[in-house]
């Protein structure tokens, strides 16, 4: 199962490091990262494979969200199917 992680917030050191560390700790494999800075704001969309992870999706979402709050970025993790069904027949 693929996961889409979107991160938005004021840029600072260590955002990618923090997200990728949480994913690595939970055996979630990163497939692609698209990241840029617009007017000092950090935007990242990361696609990951979660099938070999033991953590429940809701728990991972919570961990990412709470860690994001600590450094003032908004982190959302969604099951990729919502994007697949909407944009592909």
């Amino acid at each position, binding site marked *: 199962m693929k996961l889409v992680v*979107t991160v938005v917030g004021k840029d600072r050191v260590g955002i990618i490091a923090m997200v990728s560390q949480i994913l690595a700790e939970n055996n979630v494999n990163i497939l692609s990262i698209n990241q840029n800075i617009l007017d000092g704001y950090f935007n990242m969309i990361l696609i990951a494979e979660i099938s070999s992870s033991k953590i429940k999706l809701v728990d991972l*979402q919570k961990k990412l969200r709470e860690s994001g709050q600590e450094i003032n970025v908004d982190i959302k993790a969604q099951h990729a199917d*919502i994007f697949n069904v909407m*944009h592909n027949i």
Partner: protein
Amino acid sequence: MISIDDIIETNEMITENKLDVRTITMGISLRDCAHPNMEQFCRNVYDKITKSAEFLVKTGEDIEAEYGIPIIHKRVSVTPIAIAADACKTDTYVPVAEAMDRAAKEIGVNFIGGFSALVEKGFTNGDRILINSIPQALAMTDVVCSSVNLGSTKTGINMDCVREMGEVIKRTAELTRDNDALGCAKLVVFCNAPGDNPFMAGAFHGVSEADKVVSVGVSGPGVVKHALEAKKGADFTEVAETIKKTAFKITRVGQLVAREASKRLGVPFGIIDLSLAPTPAVGDSVARIIEEMGIESCGAPGTTAALALLNDAVKKGGLMASSHVGGLSGAFIPVSEDEGMINAIKTGSLSLEKLEAMTCVCSVGLDMIAIEGDTSAATISGIIADEAAIGMINNKTTAVRVIPVPGKKVGDMVEFGGLLGYCPIVPVRNQYSSAAFIARGGRIPAPIRSLTN
């Protein structure tokens, strides 16, 4: 691979344009609950609902979290109580409504529909008891919704029931006068009511449905308006195409949610209701879509044509996105639940009479319209008869949900709270009497289906 643009578009729809799945509704048959003893029947009803839908809310919340799509309501509809309770030896069904209310609160749903009767051709004893019980049932409960189907294209219109419902609406308003006649916001009078509608207040579990079924109502007026904002000045072919594409995307999300809910609950998938359901929030309005098409204020000439195009394009776009479509499917035009409609009433550009014309081409009918409290029962029955006639002749669902608010006059505002919204009292301009017409009773015969001019 999913493209970055697709991810951004979807998440913008959710965060900026208020895309949501409006409701997951579980339909539950109560036909196996029948019992002559009222207490036992109520226990059967309570047990069946609480066992069947025990995990409905939790499942909805899980899907919401995993996919990041808000699912606003989790609800239950049941077999029309007039049918399920017909065997009870009693003269009131108020205890059944109370049992439904308790069951709904126990499982955490915010509305339960099905305190209903289907009387388009005539009344059984149970139908009469149910209709008489409506005012008290709606006053004594919080989350029970009631509906009565009193006409259809196949059978004509039951004018005895039209007369009674005018009085029932007045009594309901009186019994809930302390809450701005809130009881009437939970009561819908239908012609051609579908048995698989997941939307309240008119949801009930039709008699031809399976024992249990999960249906989903989608929404998304804000998304459609946003898509049209990029098409300023485009011709109607392009407008229709844009709405179709947007409706397709919205419905695909609904289908995904319905499939997941059905799988996780172990309950068959019923239908997707392809509806544009507005809320009172800014940016979630059907009226504003009409205005985006070029009508200065909803209700101005051209409004009915704009709504017809919108309603049709939503269906065309949504149909291919779902394996089964049903319910009401189209654009809703409730007044108090739509910020743009409320504004159009305030400015005087939208009237009850124009709304009636709009119901010829929208998905349902005169919905969530507050009128003066001293409007007579016969006038309300006249409004119901007109609306039922539109549904009967045009082979479509029509409905009336008017709220005669005691003590309120044109110029006053009414607050229903939450998604039921707020609105100014809408004037019933024509003050001439319908009493002698409504007093006749009997049935309007079923209409001819050819020579359709």
